[in-house]
C-alpha cells in the first residue's frame, strides 16, 4: 500500500491523473527494480486509470523494465561518439570483470546492463548512467571504481 500513498502524493502536481502516470511508474519501479503485473495494478489503482492503459504506457518506454533486473541498472552508451572514445572496450571489460553481458544481469543480482544509443553526453564521451546517476568521461579504471560504489 505504501506505493499507492506515495503516488497519490504526486497527484496534485499534475493537471490530471494521466499526467502523473510516468512518475508513478518510476515510483513503482524503484520498489522492485522492475514493473511486475502487480506493480502495474498498484499504479492503476492509485491513479484510477485502466490497467491496460497503464501497461500500454509502461511497455512503450525503454526506461520502464518489464523483467526483473539487478539492483542497479547500468545504461552504457556505445553510439558514435562513445564508440570512438572506447566504449566497446568498456563493454568487454564489464563482461570480463563482472560476467555482465549487454541485456543481462550479474549472477549475484547486483548489476544489469543495457546498451544505450546516445544519452546526450557526446562531448564527455564515453558516458553511462547507473540508476539515475550520470557518469561521463569513463576510462577502464574509472568505471571499475565507480561501480564499486554500488552495492
Amino acid at each position, binding site marked *: 500500500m505504501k506505493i499507492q500513498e506515495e503516488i497519490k502524493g504526486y497527484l496534485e502536481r499534475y493537471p490530471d491523473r494521466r499526467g502523473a502516470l510516468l512518475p508513478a511508474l518510476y515510483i513503482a519501479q524503484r520498489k522492485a527494480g522492475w514493473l511486475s503485473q502487480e506493480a*502495474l495494478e498498484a499504479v492503476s489503482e492509485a491513479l484510477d486509470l485502466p490497467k491496460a492503459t497503464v*501497461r500500454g504506457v509502461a511497455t512503450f518506454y525503454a526506461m520502464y523494465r518489464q523483467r526483473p533486473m539487478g539492483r542497479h541498472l547500468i545504461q552504457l552508451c556505445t553510439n558514435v561518439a562513445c564508440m570512438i572514445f572506447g566504449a566497446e572496450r568498456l563493454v568487454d571489460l564489464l563482461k570480463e570483470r563482472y560476467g555482465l553481458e549487454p541485456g543481462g544481469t550479474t549472477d549475484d543480482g547486483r548489476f544489469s546492463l543495457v546498451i544505450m544509443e546516445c544519452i546526450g553526453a557526446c562531448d564527455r564521451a564515453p558516458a553511462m548512467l547507473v540508476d539515475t546517476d550520470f557518469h561521463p568521461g569513463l576510462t577502464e579504471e574509472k568505471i571499475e571504481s565507480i561501480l564499486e560504489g554500488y552495492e
Partner: protein
Amino acid sequence: MIKLTIDGREVELERPVTVLEAAKRVGVTIPTLCYFEGLPNFGGCRLCLVEVERLPKLQTSCTLMASDGMVVRTETEQIRAARRAMLEFLLINHPLDCPYCDKAGECTLQDLVARYGPEAGRFAEGKRKHPESLDDPIIVRNMERCVLCTRCVRMCEDLQGAYAISVSGRGGHSLIEPFSGGRYDCEYCGNCLTVCPVGAIMSRLHRHSYRPWFVEREVETVCGYCGVGCSMVLQVREDSIVRTIPRFGLGLNNGLLCVRGRFGYDAVDGEGRLTTPLIRVEGRLEPVGWEEALAFVASRLGEIKDSHGGRAVGAIASGRCTNEDNYMLQKLMRFVIGSNNIDSAARFHYAPAEAFLESVFGQGITANLIPGIADSDGVFVTGGDPTAINPVLGLQVRAARRSGGKVIVLGPPGGLKRFVDHELVPMPYSDEVVLSAIVGGLMEAGRSSGENRAVEERLKELRLPSEEELSAAGIGPEALARAVDDLLKMTNPVVILGPEIMDGARASKRLFLVGAVAYLMNARIYLLSERPNYQGVMDMGCVPDLLPGGGPIGLEMLRDRIEAVLGLRVPEEGGLTLFEMVDEAERGGLRALYVMGEDLLFSLPDRARVQRALGRLDLLVVQDIYLTETAAMADVVLPAAAWSEKDGTFTNLERRVQLLRRGRYPRAGREDWRIIADIGGRLGMEKTYRSAEEVWEEVTHASPLHAGLGYSEIAGGGAVWPYHSEPLKGTEAGFAVQGLGELPGVEAPGGPYLMPERPLFHSGTLSRRSRALLSIHPEPYLVIPPSLSEELGVTDGGRVRVVGAKGTMVLKVRIDPDQREGTVLLSNTFEGANFAGLVGFTADPVTGCLTIEDNTVRLERVDDEAL
C-alpha cells in the same frame, strides 16, 4: 456555407466535416484502413491520402477538414503510388497467410492490396514473429496480422468504455494486448473484433469452420437475451448459424452488441435440446408422438375445465417467447378455457413496476427511446447496473457521461464505476431513506410544477430523513446535497430504474419516489428489462387484469370491443397472479398449469414450496426447449422452437416492436404459438393460423394499441411507441403507496444479506446452455466483501457453506473489494447453486411484485479436505 470540389464534383456543406466525409456525400469513396465511422479519428494508416490543390503534400482526408474553395483529387497516379507504398510497408510484417486466415474474403488489407498492389514486397529481412494467442476462450489474437490501426483500442475505450486493451510495446514491436497479455478478462462485447479490418482479433467460436463466402443467407433479426432488443444478422450456411454479427446502421444498437448477443447464440444448441414430446407414464417421462401428446393435453385440459371450471386452470407466459406465442397462450386461456389466470415472470419486477408507474403517470410513461440517453445531460440510475442487465443501454449511459453529462448512481455502480459523478451506496435496504432525501431536496428547490396534483398531494405526506438518519443510511448529508445540486442543473435528464429497486418491503414507496424524482426533474424514465419480451408479454395481455393492448379487463367497454373483434367472450372473474397460482395450486384450487418457456422451480424462491405446489397439480404441461427442472416434474413436455428458429415479434423496453426472423428450421420442436393453437383447435377454437404473421394480424385487431401495425410497417421501422393509436391516459383509479409517512429504522440483521447478482455473462437459465458464455463464466460463486473473507478466513476461490432459510449450498467465493459491507451476492444461473434456492418470498401487497424474504444467511468456511 462551404463549397469545394472533389474529383470534379461540387460539394456544399452546411457545417465543416472532414474531406473524407464530404467525399462520401457526393458518392466518392476514399479507401481507408484506420478510419471507422463513429470512432475518434486517428490518421495513422495514410491510406486515405488525397491531393489538394495549393497544398504541397498529400493529405490524410480522414483528418483534414474541408474548407471553402478546396479542390481535391482522390485517385491520381501520385496517390496510387503513395497508397501502394503504404501497403508495402504494412506487408513488411503482415504475414501472407490468407489461405489460413478466417478473415480472408472480408479483409480490408487484402482488398486494398488487390486494388493497389504491391504485387511483391522488396523487404527480404523476414517478418516479425508472434504466435497466435489462444489463451482466451472466446477471442483469438494473431498479432502478426495486426496493422496497428488502433480501431480496436478506440472501440474498446471510446464506444464500449471498457478500456481493456491497449497498444503495448513500441515501433515494430507494438501489438495489441489485454492487461494480462493472454486472457482478455474484459466485458467480451466482441465489438473490437467487429472493427478489426484484418484477421488480428477474431472470434474463436467459428474458428476455421467456414469461409466468409460460404455464407449462404443473411437474416436480420433481434437478440433473444434482453429487453434492449439489439438488431443482428444471422449468417447461415446449410441451415446452421455460422455466426451472429451486428451491423452499423441497423437497429438501435447501430453496430454494437454485448457479449450475450454476440457470443451467446449457441445457447439453442446446448446438450439436451428436447427432441420429442414426452408424457409421464408410471412416473417416468416417455417419448411420444406429437399427435398423442397434443390430444392428451387437450383432453386433460378439457376434462379439468369441465369438472372444475376455467378458474382451475392457469398459464405462465414467457418473456423469451414472441408476442405471437404469448398472444396465443392468452387466447387459449381467456377465450377457450375461460380463465384469466395468466401471468409470467414479468410479475417479479418489470410488470408491477410499469403498472405502478403508469397508474401514477399514464400509459407509456416508460416508453422512451434508448439512443436518446446518450444525448441527455444527466442520468440518475438506481436499482441495478444497466451495463450488466441491459448492456447496450448501459453504453448509452457511458456515452452521456463522455459527452459531459453527469451520472448519479444510487446503489452499487457496477460497470458504471468509471463513469459516475456521484456514487451513493446506501446501507442495504436503506434506499428509501436516500430517495426521500433526494425528493426532499428537489421539492425544496421549488421543483413542484403543480402539473400532477395527485403526486404532489401524496408527496406532502413524505417523511424526510434527518441528517442523522441519512448518515445512518450510509450517505453523508454533504454528499447528498452535492448530488441534488447536480440533479437540479440537468436540463434533459434521464432516470433509469432496475429491478432491484423493488427488493425488500414497501416496493411501492421506492417506485413512487423514483417516479417523483423523474417527475420533479421532468426526466424520461427507462425500466430495465431482463428478458427480450417482458413488454410484449404485458402488451399481449398475459397479465391477469390486462387485455391485449394493455387495457384493464375491468372496463366493460374494452371487453365488449375485443368480443366484437374475436367473437369470443372475456371471462369476467378476476385472474390469479403467478404467486397466487402457486398458492392456489398448493391449496388444491388450481388443478392444471400450462407453463411456456419458464423454469418456475428454478426462478421462484422457496423451491420446496413451489415443488409442493406443482406436485399437487392434476396436470402440469411444460413447453420449453430444454428439460428444465420444472419440465422434469411435468406430466407432459412439449418441445418448442428456439429463438433463432422462429418468426415473430418482440417488444423491447422502449416499446419498439421488432421482427424476429427464422435463421434455420427447428431441430425438433414447433413454434410455441403453433402448439398452443393446435391444442386450442382441439378444444373448439375455430380460427386457424398458417404463420406467425397471421397471428400478428389478429393482434392488430384485438389490441387497440397495435391497430394498423403490420409486419411490413414493423420491418420499415414504423413500430415505435405510441404506434398509431392514442394510449390510455392516467387511469382514474388512482394509486396506492405504502409507508410514505414512515422511515425504516436500521435493523441489525443476524448475518449478511444474500442479494441477487445479475451478471453480464449470463441471463437466467438460458445462458448456461451456451458453451461460449460458460467458457467465460463457468461456475457459480458467492461475491463477498474483503471484511467477510477475513472474518471467515477464506481466500479467493475458497469454499463456504451458505446456510439460508430455504436451503444450504457450498459455494466458491470471489472477494470483491467493491462489494458492499453486510451483503453477499449470488446469481440465479446455475443449477443447485442459485440465489432463489436459498431464500423465501412473498408478494408485495401493493404492487404485487416479488418480495424476497428470509435472505440473511450464515456462512461457514469449508476446508477442501472436508469435501
